[in-house]
């Protein structure tokens, strides 16, 4: 079961993957950390940790804590900076037959554009724009919370590179469909969703927030219903491929996203619990195709979506 199964191949706007199972940014280091646990050649793509122009030390204090069926993190984008990534990490990653997607974050549009320029090198398959970070020019409000500022980032990157541009949407918005449409219009080739929900936890003994940063990003199975809903809604509204993520722990979970309209999926928090998951899931997807007599995983993409015309859902949810 460890050979590449061509029925699992997917093509996302030109991004060719051996397996629809990738690993989400910030949850898989730079990929190399997992060499002892799985065969990197079996991972569709490695989305590396959020990378910034200058190295960042990240937040101080406690950076993660478990919550019911999930966890909060406030790493604060600790990373060695784009230059070190290009010089030291990328050459090692390129030895594997997996696609390298670089997740980038900036505090201004210009920072995103400069990152994109620097990363327009062989071996980088696509750039994933993390727009959940605070926009310093707009008083620290995240780029990803309004269609205009998100589009600005996408356009800046679009003009700076001919690499595939993936925009990673934040779920902390009133209207995910509006965000999706705006960022596609601004030039995104692919959308990733979802990033983490903003949450926090209080230590009742110390009577203080547990995390050093007070608030953090909620990930894991707890958020899966929100993620599936957003993928399902966005898949009906835009024509670009979607990478679905949020709480994927099993092959059934991955299928749920694919049926909701995702062309590929990414494992995040699941990598912490079962570091071999991305490889095992590829095997299990092959077995599922066998069992159901499905010729290609692509047949399943969006299979649970309604006909485009029928507007479904949206009634009273309580």
């Amino acid at each position: 079961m460890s050979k590449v199964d061509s029925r699992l191949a997917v093509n996302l706007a030109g991004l060719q993957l051996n397996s629809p199972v990738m690993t989400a940014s910030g949850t898989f280091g730079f990929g190399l950390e997992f060499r002892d646990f799985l065969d990197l050649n079996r991972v569709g793509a490695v989305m590396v940790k959020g990378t910034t122009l200058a190295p960042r030390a990240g937040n101080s204090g406690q950076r993660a804590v478990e919550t019911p069926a999930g966890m909060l993190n406030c790493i604060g984008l600790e990373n060695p900076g784009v230059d070190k990534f290009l010089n030291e990490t990328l050459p090692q990653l390129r030895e594997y037959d997996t696609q390298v997607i670089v997740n980038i974050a900036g505090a201004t549009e210009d920072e995103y554009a400069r990152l994109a320029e620097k990363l327009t090198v062989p071996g980088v398959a696509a750039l994933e724009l993390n727009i959940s970070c605070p926009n310093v020019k707009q008083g620290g409000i995240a780029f990803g919370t309004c269609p205009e500022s998100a589009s600005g980032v996408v356009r800046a990157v679009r003009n700076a590179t001919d690499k595939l541009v993936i925009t990673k949407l934040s779920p902390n918005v009133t209207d995910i469909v509006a965000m999706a449409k705006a960022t596609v219009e601004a030039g995104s080739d692919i959308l990733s969703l979802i990033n983490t929900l903003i949450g926090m936890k209080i230590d009742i003994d110390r009577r203080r927030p547990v995390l050093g940063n007070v608030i953090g990003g909620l990930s894991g199975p707890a958020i899966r219903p929100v993620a599936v809903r957003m993928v399902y809604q966005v898949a009906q509204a835009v024509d670009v491929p979607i990478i679905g993520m949020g709480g994927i722990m099993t092959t059934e979970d991955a299928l749920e996203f694919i049926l909701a309209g995702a062309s590929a999926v990414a494992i995040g928090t699941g990598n912490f619990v079962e570091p071999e998951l991305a490889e095992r899931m590829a095997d299990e997807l092959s077995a599922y195709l066998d069992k159901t007599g499905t010729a290609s995983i692509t047949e399943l993409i969006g299979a649970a979506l309604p006909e485009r015309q029928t507007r479904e859902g949206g009634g009273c949810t309580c």
Partner: protein
Amino acid sequence: MGKVKTLGDKRRFSATLVQQQQMNHDVYRMVLSAPEIAAMIKPGQFLQLKTGRLMDPLLRRPISIADADDGEGTLQLVYRVVGEGTKYLAGLQQGAEIDILGPLGNGFTLQGERPLIVGGGMGIAPLLYLVRALCPKPVDVLLAGREASELFWIKLFAERCQAVHVTTDDGSLGTKGNALALLPQLLAQGQYDMLYTCGPDPMMEAVAKEAAKHGVPCQVSLERYMACGIGACLSCSCGAKDGSRKKVCTDGPVFWAEEVML
């Protein structure tokens, strides 16, 4: 027992619970049959244990190796019940299978001819296996606890150590006070050429300072909240003295005292 199957990757194993023993009101000692891990593991390394049937708890729990016996293929863990994960461990019966990632992290550097070991609280756990590895060197140990019942360790160390010194905060056993109540005089009198310590950060900081004063090289073993334990999430980060960041899980948990900020 003795049967250990890998779960499909190189550092994920299923270990069998051989023995479970209660050491004091909230601390347990567990013997596991896990020959593959026992053959690889070095003092100072740790394991990530799945502590539930399903997703509650979701994340694994890091536990140090308190002892390992390659010949018998067994590991010993000593752990305090503090929450749901450790409560689950304490409830397991002989024969239970535990899903484990490991060995993880970097262990202690074995050097020097006359090592001194200073442990505080649950930080004593990884030091027991260290003593075994240091044998037959003559090792002295200083164990610090809040009160006598925390120091069930003494007889375990006594078998392997030259001298066992003890302090308790409440004076219920040994010298009253914390490790620093005894350490300066030990360092002044003994001919120690290496110091290993594990315990609360403030204790290790004071111990390292004292070691430096006496020109004794010192290694510290850090504990941080760990979501992954394998270098993927950066939740365990600590500051290095050179301004960079270290991952406690993969760069440590053992560091040279002068490398990191406590």
